[in-house]
């Protein structure tokens, strides 16, 4: 009986150690999105400043970098120059910013001070963010020219991370 108990104990401890090691190796900010490989939820939102409506479905044919952010988010300040620089360098890629739970005048001030190179849309009630499974900001979705989500990145992007994810959208 003691041998049986020992074997069971060893198995349980081995499973716990395996689960802990597998979990500790992961970045807790990155959650696998069930939307990867699925069509990007369609939306048409008003652009801050111009008031123009941007329809995601009208952007088919080009890879899209869809970035959720807000002016009250610290890491978004850090990420913004990377997005603007890449948007300027990659004219064949459509960058779109979606701001949720924010005020239009604050967003306009942010963009006036830090510059912009792509439309920033207003998601007033956060419904678009919910449909994309946004947990926190910044979060970026990479959509291929066919309108399928190919990658999700949680946290501020560096140029290397942006281009590595964008490569998946260009395959």
């Amino acid at each position: 009986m003691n041998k049986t108990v020992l074997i069971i104990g060893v198995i349980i401890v081995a499973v716990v150690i395996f689960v802990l090691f597998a979990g500790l190796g992961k970045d807790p900010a990155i959650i696998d999105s069930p939307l990867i490989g699925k069509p990007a939820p369609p939306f048409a939102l008003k652009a801050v400043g111009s008031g123009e409506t941007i329809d995601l479905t009208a952007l088919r044919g080009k890879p899209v970098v869809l970035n959720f952010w807000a002016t009250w988010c610290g890491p978004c300040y850090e990420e913004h120059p990377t997005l603007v620089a890449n948007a300027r360098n990659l004219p064949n890629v459509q960058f779109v910013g979606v701001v949720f739970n924010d005020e239009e005048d604050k967003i306009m001030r942010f963009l006036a001070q830090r510059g912009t190179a792509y439309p920033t849309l207003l998601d007033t009630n956060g419904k678009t963010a919910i449909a994309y499974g946004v947990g926190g900001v910044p979060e970026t979705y990479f959509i291929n020219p066919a309108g399928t989500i190919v990658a999700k990145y949680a946290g501020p992007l560096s140029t290397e991370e942006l281009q590595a994810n964008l490569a998946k959208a260009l395959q």
Partner: protein
Amino acid sequence: MMAMLVLLAFLQVKVPDAAQIIGPPAGTPVTGAQLERRTMEISSELRCPVCQGLAIGDSPSIMAANMKAQVRELLERGYTETQILSYFEKSYGQFVLLKPKFQGVNALVWILPIAALAIGFLLVMSKAKKLESAPAKASLPEEPADDPYLAQVREMVDKQ
């Protein structure tokens, strides 16, 4: 004219709709006090994605408030609890469900406590059996085969 333009701009705005994700409502619209109660019940089953293990019903975050408003709206439109949970699961994954589903690795969450209880019960039962048999053995101690005193007694008895 201005009001018309504002209305037109508002109408042009289109957010992802639940019907595109989970189809038409399968239940009946909920209103009044029942709407509040059902919103709270379903909100207690959904994890706030920006909090540490809090339900959206208990979280003061903006994200949780948005999700709760979405739950309320879907109930008003006649969506069932299963459909609403499925709506959030389709965008956030099973992570958003505070009560994990009995499938895949998540099934272990349900199976392991029951298995641990069963193993514990079996261990207790086996120990109890051993304890029951132990006093019986104690009352009849085995006679040592090479006890000289016992051998002497046996010899005397045999002689008589």
